[in-house]
């Protein structure tokens, strides 16, 4: 079994009200120095060793991500 991580973020040009809400709230709570916040998704998959990179890319691109609005990174983390 290998562990695979997929990080998915809203495309930069797309308004991210969730991230913005966090960024706006931080100064109110006394935290300064945070310029911007963006919020996306983080998936952790346990996959059989014979699942190759091409398959992982397809799983991400066709299913975990909507390429119209999101960008993503797939990486294997050491088992």
């Amino acid at each position: 079994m290998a562990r695979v991580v997929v990080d998915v973020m809203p495309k930069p040009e797309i308004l991210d009200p969730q991230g913005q809400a966090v960024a706006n709230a931080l100064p109110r709570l006394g935290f300064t120095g945070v310029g911007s916040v963006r919020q996306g998704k983080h998936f952790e998959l346990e996959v059989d060793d014979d699942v190759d990179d091409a398959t992982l890319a397809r799983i991400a691109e066709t299913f975990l991500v909507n390429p119209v609005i999101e960008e993503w990174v797939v990486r294997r983390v050491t088992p």
Partner: protein
Amino acid sequence: MTKIGVITFPGTLDDADAARAVSSAGADAVALWHADADLRGVDAVVVPGGFSYGDYLRCGAIARFAPVMGEVIAGASKGMPVLGICNGFQILCEAGLLPGALLRNAKLHFVCRDQWLRVDNTETAWTSRFDRDAEILVPLKNIDGRYIADKSTVDRLEGEGRVVFRYVHGNPNGSVNDIAGVCSANGRVVGLMPHPEHAIATLTGPSDDGLDLFRSVLDAVVNP
């Protein structure tokens, strides 16, 4: 009698309402099951609202792979009228039948309110009974209702008159260009976030303005 299919996915909520609207408009509502790759000979399909598969992952992302959707996509390519309402709209976008995507509302909350819309395109299979620029009052209820598409897509939609419904008297969720609903290039597939099926009688809705969508498609089926 014209047969209009209403799909039920696990997590679909407004299927009974859509079926009621179809019947009120004088058509035969046919229940379609997500797991059956079978449209049961219907003339048109409504993909109703709800939270298919809990809207986990992304709204509509899991449902669009259901066996029944393969048939819907095939039917649409042959000109079968398809209407996606709310979650149904999200599913049609995920399935590539309509452009764009729907994101979390600008204020991040679920919003349920009676919403004014303007009908900007009366040439589609689902809007022919409306007067152009008619303003209608229809319930809106969702948390992921902010319509978005890249600039060139939006420009194209605007240029081709494919924005079918537009929010008026206030944009409830931050949708680009106040877009509430769009259609396919041939005007047979329409998707919108507000719920016309909840506006078919003043007893249970804010108006009966929604009924004309379901009446329009009767004409579209007879005169494709």
